[in-house]
Every structure is written in structure tokens, then in C-alpha cells.
């Protein structure tokens, strides 16, 4: 990529931030989009093949490893792999027990799936930005964005999944009236019936905004962190384009420093996403 003299820095960055998109072209034929303009024309009915491929691959990898352990799980002395898996499961279980006060068997496996899946997707960020796209280009794939968590579709999908569960459990636990009361009877409360009625629309606006803000902030937090991290990796990679020079060596050093710092970020973001999921579901289970 960087060796191509015709490629400018901004084109390089744009190329790296473009998904491999399959959809309906403006002329009615179906195929892979070449360039951001074509993607825009496809609109909603297009799919990011790279995001789907990597996220499913990583999710299957996580589930395969855990399933292999779960199949041969022993209550006695665990072997190395089981020990590792149990360590993660204990960690998740501890977090769920600490933050989640209700009784719901779905929360812990949900948290485990989210944590491991997001962590694996984020880890893709540590692979040097050019390696996989370059290999993909060798076999004729024009675009390849390897970090699914830098695709807002992926983070929104998870946040929406969690949001739907939150609404579902809110209504299931508190009933429709309970959930409605939660949206309209607080934070402003009054014994006076007139004031109460007056407060309903105000409360509703406040609560509704905070309710809607949850999935948005939930997904954008992860997306923003990963996207920014990826962007910095791309910018550092541009430093290599000048050939072997002081700048390239400095870029190598920066790459290493940022990658090490990024290990913290990817783990932290996966953890935060998981904890927020637990907290949101806990709120859905709480009576007022």
C-alpha cells in the first residue's frame, strides 16, 4: 500500500477506513462496492462482509474454545485450559454477582459473551494495520477492515441487543404500568394531583432522553475508542511510507508504545461494555 507512489496519505487513510461492502449498485446489479461513493449509493441494503466475517470468526473461535472445555469439564482437578476458562468465568461471575442484584440466568452468559467477543474483536487492532488488507489485496479483495468493533454496525448491534433486553425485563419485572411509571413519575414527584399531572410530560422527556441515550452512549463509547485507536495506528503507519529514515524508525517506536498502551484500552473497553450491560440490566430488574 504505502509503496504505491500514487497513493496519497488521505487516500491511504480512506482506504483503511472503508469496509468491504456488498450491496446493490445504482445500476441495479449486485456486487462489491468500490469506493465510498458507491457504498453511499447502496444505502441501507448493503452488508459489510469484512465486519461480518471477522466478528463471526472471532465469536466462533471464542465459543469453540469455551465449548471444548465445557464439553469435557470436570468437577475434580482441572487441566490447564479448563483452568484458564474457569478463571475468566469466575471473573465474569464475580462481576455479575457484584453488580447484578436480581435473579436472571441470562445475564452472566450474556456478559461473558460480550466481554470475550469484544475483547477478541478489539485485539484485531493490535495486528499491524497493513498486514491483513495487503494479504487480502493479493487475492483480489479491494477493502478489508479487520477490526469489527471499529464498525458502528457491530457496536450498535450489541448495544441494541442489550437495550431490547433492558426494555423486555423492565416490562416483565415491573409490568407495563410500572415501566411507564418509571418513565413519568420521577425524578419530579409530588403529592398534589395537579402538580403530578404537570410533572408527567417533564419527567417523560427527561427519562426518555436518558433511556435512549443509554444504547447510543453504550455503543459509541466502544466504537469511538476503537476507531480513534485504529486511526492512530494508521497515522503511525503513514510514517513508514517515507522508506527507511529517522521518521520510519520513530514510527516503529511509536507503533510499539501505542500498541502497548492499546492493550489497556481494548481490555478496558471490553470490560466497560460488559459492566454497563450488567448495570443496565440490573436497573431493569429494580423496583422503585
Amino acid at each position, binding site marked *: 500500500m504505502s509503496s504505491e507512489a500514487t497513493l496519497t496519505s488521505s487516500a491511504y487513510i480512506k482506504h483503511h477506513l472503508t*469496509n468491504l*461492502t456488498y*450491496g446493490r449498485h445504482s445500476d441495479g446489479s449486485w456486487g462489491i462496492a468500490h469506493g465510498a461513493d458507491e*457504498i*453511499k449509493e*447502496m*444505502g*441501507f*441494503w*448493503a*452488508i*459489510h462482509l469484512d*465486519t*461480518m466475517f471477522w*466478528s*463471526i470468526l472471532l*465469536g466462533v473461535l471464542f*465459543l469453540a474454545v*469455551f*465449548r471444548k*472445555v*465445557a*464439553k469435557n*469439564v*470436570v*468437577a*475434580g482437578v482441572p487441566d490447564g485450559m479448563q483452568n484458564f*476458562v*474457569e478463571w475468566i*468465568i*469466575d471473573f465474569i*461471575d464475580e462481576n455479575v454477582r457484584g453488580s447484578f442484584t436480581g435473579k436472571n*440466568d*441470562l445475564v*452472566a*452468559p*450474556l456478559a*461473558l*459473551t460480550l466481554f470475550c*467477543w469484544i475483547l477478541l474483536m478489539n485485539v484485531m487492532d493490535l495486528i499491524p494495520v497493513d498486514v491483513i488488507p495487503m494479504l487480502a489485496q493479493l487475492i483480489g479483495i479491494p477493502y478489508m477492515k479487520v477490526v*469489527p468493533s471499529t*464498525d*458502528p*454496525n*457491530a457496536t*450498535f*448491534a*450489541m448495544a*441494541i*441487543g442489550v437495550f431490547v433486553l433492558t426494555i423486555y425485563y423492565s416490562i416483565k419485572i415491573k409490568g407495563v404500568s410500572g415501566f411507564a411509571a418509571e418513565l413519568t413519575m420521577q425524578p419530579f414527584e409530588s403529592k398534589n394531583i395537579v402538580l403530578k399531572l404537570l410533572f408527567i410530560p417533564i419527567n417523560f422527556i427527561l427519562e426518555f432522553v436518558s433511556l435512549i441515550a443509554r444504547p447510543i452512549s453504550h455503543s459509541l463509547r466502544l466504537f469511538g475508542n476503537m476507531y480513534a485507536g485504529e486511526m492512530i495506528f494508521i497515522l503511525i503507519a503513514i510514517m513508514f511510507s517515507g522508506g527507511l529514515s529517522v521518521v520510519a524508525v520513530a514510527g516503529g517506536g511509536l507503533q510499539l508504545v501505542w500498541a502497548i498502551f492499546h492493550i489497556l484500552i481494548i481490555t478496558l473497553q471490553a470490560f466497560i461494555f460488559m459492566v454497563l450491560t450488567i448495570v443496565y440490566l440490573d436497573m431493569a430488574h429494580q423496583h422503585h
Partner: protein
Amino acid sequence: MNINLTLIGQLITFIVFVWFCKQYVWTPIINALAERRTTIADGLAAADKGQAAQAEGEIQAGKLVEEAKGQAAEILNKAEKRGTEIVSEAKTEAGGEGDRILVAARAEIDTEVSKAKESLRAQVSELAVAGAQQILKREVDEKAHADLLDDLAARL
């Protein structure tokens, strides 16, 4: 930054993953962990029980040893007592036997003495008769003087 069908695809993937994780990963592993927890708890409880039983056993053993010691001392006391009794019994018995022997011996001696006296008297009376015969130079009619001689013998 395009929101498109990928969102739906990711949502389905997400739901499938969570379902699979809950069904085939989380449940068996967490069950195994719970099982191990109970096993360990049972083991610890059994160890505690064992220790308590051992302590109890030690106390019991101590009691038994104390009891045995008391019994032994009692037996020893009884034996000593019995010993002294036997000795004293033997002593009194021996004393009685001695007395009896002494009495018998005395009685024998008395009879011997009286027998000797008797024979001596007879001999003396014979001597006296022989002497008198010598003196008188004649046969003394023993029948005629029997009274006299008996009287003499009785006086000796």
C-alpha cells in the same frame, strides 16, 4: 460510518452467540464449578468432623487409661490387704497349732512321767520286797503282805 444491513446481521450473530454461550458453555461450566465447591466444602466439613472425632477419641482414651489406672490401684490394694490377711491368718493358725502341740506334748510328758513313776513304784516295791526277803531271809508271803506292799508303793 454507514449504518446498513450489517447491523441486522450483527444483531442476529450476537443473539446466536449469547444463546449458544448460555446453553452450551456457561451452564455446564458453572455447574461443574458449583459441584466442585460443594465437594470442597464437604471435604472440609469431613476433615473438621474427623478432627473433632479424634479429639473426642483422645479424651475417651484418657478416660479409659485413668479408669484402668484406678482399677489397677484398687486391685493392688486388695491384693496387699489379702496378703496381710493371709499372713496374719497363717500366724494365728501357726500359734494355735503350736499351742496344741505344746499341750499334747505336755500331756504326753505327764503320762510318761506318771508311767515312769508307776514303774518306779513297782520296782521300788519289788526292791523293798526283795530287801525285806533278804532281811527276813525267808519267803514273804506275797499274798499276805500284798496290802502292805501296795500301801508302801502308794506312799512312794
